[in-house]
């Protein structure tokens, strides 16, 4: 077993530009995966990929050569349809060869359509919404019980919080004062059938969640300075779990996918669309 000391912030001083370039590679991989599979969920993968990039390249104590080290930080992708985001970032981080991404959603591949635990670096299978957050609560509770200092991060979707089980988990996280748990809400404002405000309006999420006893902070989910500040805020809060609301754009980085419910669960519709997505991502440049 690798000494827990080795699970340090491997690249904790990565520049924003460096993070941007990793996210750019991940975006390309996401498009390639859903294009090759001719199915999958690009919209919610592109909205959360900047946060994932920050977590895996600047924050999480994880070791690709020892993915089950007991001292590792835990990450749970509760919105399991964003599997292209998690699979791509794990491969970039070295958990498995990028080669495997080509077989996403195909028979004989471990890269199941929704997040699958058989893949190195993945803590739990997810796909049915409203469950991963409860699993994360169990992990954080176990860390407290065992007096371990690893942290648990979980990403939930803004459509996902329509599940009552999410609010049950808020109650439990609050009751057990899980300050080692950081819940990140990907507020991309779109779910499968359309805009969340139309499908099931949930205005003023911040005060609602705060009333459940959580710390709440909103930030721009595509700005690395804001992501860094938000994560640091959550880590330093004591006695309460934290919900970080990542204000994001669904489909971020591909013009025709941005804010378009169609691309919640559809790949590029044509070779032209695929080429355009790759071109736009490739041409994007880091701006201060």
């Amino acid at each position, binding site marked *: 077993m690798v000494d827990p000391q080795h699970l340090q912030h491997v690249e904790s001083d990565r520049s924003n530009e460096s993070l941007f370039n990793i996210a750019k590679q991940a975006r390309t991989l996401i498009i390639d995966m859903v294009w090759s599979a001719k199915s999958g969920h690009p919209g919610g993968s592109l909205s959360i990929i900047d946060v994932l990039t920050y977590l895996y390249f600047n924050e999480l104590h994880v070791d690709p050569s020892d993915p089950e080290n*007991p001292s590792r930080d*835990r990450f749970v992708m509760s919105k399991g349809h964003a599997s292209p985001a998690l699979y791509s970032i794990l491969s970039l981080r070295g958990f498995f060869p990028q080669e495997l991404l080509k077989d996403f959603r195909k028979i004989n591949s471990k890269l199941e359509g929704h997040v699958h*635990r058989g893949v190195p670096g993945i*803590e*739990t*299978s*997810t*796909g*049915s919404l*409203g*469950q*991963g*957050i*409860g*699993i*994360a*609560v*169990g*992990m*954080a*509770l*176990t*860390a407290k*019980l*065992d007096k371990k200092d690893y942290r648990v991060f979980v990403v939930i979707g803004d459509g996902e919080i329509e599940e*009552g*089980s999410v609010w*049950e*988990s808020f*109650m*439990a996280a609050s*009751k*057990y004062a899980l300050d080692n748990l950081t819940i990140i809400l990907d507020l991309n404002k779109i779910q499968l059938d359309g805009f969340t405000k139309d499908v099931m309006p949930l205005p003023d999420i911040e005060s609602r969640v705060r009333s459940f006893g959580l710390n709440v902070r909103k930030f721009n989910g595509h700005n690395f300075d804001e992501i860094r500040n938000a994560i640091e805020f959550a880590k330093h809060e004591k006695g309460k779990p934290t919900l970080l609301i990542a204000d994001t754009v669904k489909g971020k980085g591909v013009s025709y996918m941005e804010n378009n419910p169609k691309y919640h669960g559809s790949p590029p519709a044509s070779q032209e669309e695929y080429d355009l997505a790759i071109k736009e991502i490739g041409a994007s440049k880091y701006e201060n």
Partner: protein
Amino acid sequence: MRIESPRESYGKKLAELGESHKDIVVLDADLSSSTKTQVFGKKFPERFFNMGISEQSMVATAAGMALSGKKAFVSTFAVFLMRTYEQIRQSVCYNNIDVKFVVTHAGITVGEDGATHQIVEDVGIMSGLPNMKVIVPSDSIETESVIQYLVEKTKTPYYVRLSREKFPVLNDDDYQFREGQNVVMKDGTDLTIFCNGAMVDFSLKAAEKLKELAIDTAVVNVSSIKPIDRKGIIDYARKTGHIVTAEEHSIYNGLGSRVAEVTAEEYPVIMQRVGMRDSFGKSGKGWELFDYFHMGVSDIVDAGLKVFREEKKYESIS
């Protein structure tokens, strides 16, 4: 005959095993005084988690704890666990992790609380899940042995179905549960009653009455519904040629269905099923309801006689 409560045996055994097995954690949903997990909770408060009336969160949290190396026991009333079918399916069974569901107040022995609390579909629901194993103990001794087995020998999902009522103690004190193996409670040559849970005692009584009618009846306890003892069922199908099943559960998707599947595939034998027939339960005293729903001792006897009558009918046709 000694009468004991299987759920009390569960609570006691779990608390006893908690001493030597520090990895055990227990979760309940505001019913710990009824499920008896409070015995563990009082002894090991730091490892007991009352999740409130939030079963979905309870099951997902248990999954997270099992994924972090714990052996999680989850208890509530059987009927309320069913609302978390999908959590059980995806977070526990698909991950194939060490979560044990030990539920109480299953079946019609719940009694006065009535139909809303009397689930008779759960064995079918749970048996359909890949990676899930399903056990229906017949008394307090078998319950304790099952719990010990789960703690000491297993690391995958199990569903153990207990009742509210006290049951007659049928097994010897040194009884040891063996997964996937039937327990022959009484041998016989003419007819076999496959049964489990509360119906084992009823079946033994029915076998005595059938003996008086010159039908030598074997009684076989199928506490391990999944995995099921295929050989044990076929052996008795061959030996006796006539089968009755008796369960405190719907005849659909429970013991009766499983036995019929096994015999239909390997050695078809004429049979009758005793159990709930596509209906909800109702209020009443637990044991009174068995007669009301035609699941009492005399109904098992009638089912046994019917097997032979039906056989004669088939013979006259052929």
